[in-house]
């Protein structure tokens, strides 16, 4: 027998970079190809989505009710974020904000390690 265990928001975290960007673009209704283009533009080309990966991700997200079908345009399915999907996305955004705050706080010290080593090398030579 299949048990339909409902996943809690925390169980989705952290989202992979691809999943994060897919959910981000679906705050507006978009079809598959629209998502691909949008993700590539938003991430400045750092994240590209292959059609196999995107189709699989959308199918899973629809099954888990993170996204839903908004409408059908010919053979294209247009998806939109559900309230549950929005919750997961917001939690991920909060996580990223904490990461960013910590990153900024440590950036100066991190740079110093590199600079110190370079100075050391310079004084040696």
């Amino acid at each position, binding site marked *: 027998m299949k048990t339909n265990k409902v996943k809690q928001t925390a169980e989705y975290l952290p989202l992979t970079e691809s999943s994060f960007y897919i959910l981000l673009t679906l705050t507006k209704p978009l079809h*598959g190809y629209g998502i*691909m283009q949008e993700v590539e533009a938003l991430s400045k080309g750092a994240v590209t*989505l*292959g059609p*196999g990966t995107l*189709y*699989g991700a959308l199918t899973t997200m629809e099954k888990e009710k993170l996204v839903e079908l908004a409408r059908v345009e010919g053979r*294209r399915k247009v998806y939109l974020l559900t309230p549950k999907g929005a919750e997961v996305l917001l939690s991920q955004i909060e996580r990223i904000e904490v990461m960013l705050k910590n990153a900024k706080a440590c950036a100066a010290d991190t740079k110093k390690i590199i600079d110190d080593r370079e100075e050391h090398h310079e004084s040696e030579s």
Partner: protein
Amino acid sequence: MNQKVKKTKWFWPWQDQEEEKWLESQSQKGLHLENPSYFGIYTFIEGDPTYYQYRLDYYSDKQKDKDAYIQIFEDAGWEYLGSTSWQYFRKIFRKDESTDIFTDTQSKVKKYERLLNQYAGFWLIIFVTIFPIRNLDDYVPWLQLVLFLLNFAILFINIFIMMKIYNRIKTLKQSIKE
């Protein structure tokens, strides 16, 4: 009318990447896959040599939203060639374009898990055919023996295929951890 050429070549279910490469080498010789089919029989159409990228995905033909599936690939510039449960796509190779249909390891793993599930389903067929055979015993012993041997051959090939696919999944999963 362009000439059609039939070729036979056998690939095991875990040799999808080898099959892609073979199809690419055929296209570079000017033989372009027209229609994939079962039992390793391929129909090609003769044409100009082309640098095609062939890619195989796996979905059983029970897939519900096939139209939407094919559309996403076509929008991304892939040509759909047909299905034997393996889904065949191709695209002309360009340096500046991404040439993979899977862009993360997770989705590659899922493809082989779908394949593995399909072979797990064969177990049912094997058990269904093994049990009634016992009752043939009294009537035609040689037939019972032949069927039994056949069943075991299928059983062992099936186990071997599943092990090979499972290994592929394990290797992919290890690459995530590294």
